[in-house]
């Protein structure tokens, strides 16, 4: 069973909630999650963002659900770092 250590997501979000509240919600999904959000483009209604999430075992389904609940959408998974259980047991 593999564990996801790092995800970089291309997310399109509305202006509200703002970047700080948005990333705080994602960070609170896991005890050791570190979230970095970079706004790449802004238009009248939306913002394009790159969100980097790091942790010991990232649950993508929960993150996707939280993002959609806030009115945003995951356009693509741009980067992934995953490790197998044999590596983590070492």
């Amino acid at each position: 069973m593999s564990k996801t250590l790092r995800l970089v997501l291309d997310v399109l979000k509305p202006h509200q909630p703002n970047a700080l509240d948005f990333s705080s919600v994602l960070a609170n999904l896991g005890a050791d999650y570190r979230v970095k959000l970079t706004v790449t483009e802004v238009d009248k209604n939306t913002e394009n963002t790159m969100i980097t999430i790091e942790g010991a075992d990232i649950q993508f389904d929960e993150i996707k659900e939280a993002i959609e609940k806030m009115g945003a959408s995951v356009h693509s998974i741009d980067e992934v770092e995953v490790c197998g259980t044999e590596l983590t047991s070492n």
Partner: protein
Amino acid sequence: MILNNQKIVVVHVLRAWNIARRYMVTNGFDGALTMLGMLTGFYASGMTDLYVAITACLGAATALFISGVSSAYLSEKAEREQELRELEQALVVDLRDSDYGQASRYLPIFVALVNGLSPLLLSLFILSPLYLAKLGYSFLFSPFINAIILGLICIFLFGVFLGKIGNTFWLWSGLRTLIIAIATVAIILFLERFI
């Protein structure tokens, strides 16, 4: 996750609060001036029947409540739905189950209640001297005069509130709205001479 959701809900409520505050002042002012006008009319006509006065004013207050709730709900619902549609087009997602979708359903209700309750509660407060007189309490002036004074005080305080919002000197702001109310009373008393 529950705390996160509450925080996002608060964000949406705060956005609606500015609109609700505007409605509260506008319709509250309407309610106060309507009561002031009716009470001045009753006083100028020499009427002393408290039951008729209270019933008539309650009828007007109820109509203001229903008008406030329905008009605000319909217009706010249309605005929220339009905003949601625009956002859905921009994001290319269905937002019905998101916080935005929920906000478009419950925030119009919140704004409508503020818009309706504002004139109703203010009217009930202004009419309180009439109720108290009907219950047998007596005051220095006639109940109509007391209610008119209460109405003028409420309108002055509205002006003070508006001054605080607009960051202007509270006294000038209060006096401005008070002058409007006194002018209303004066016009009604003047017109009564021609009836």
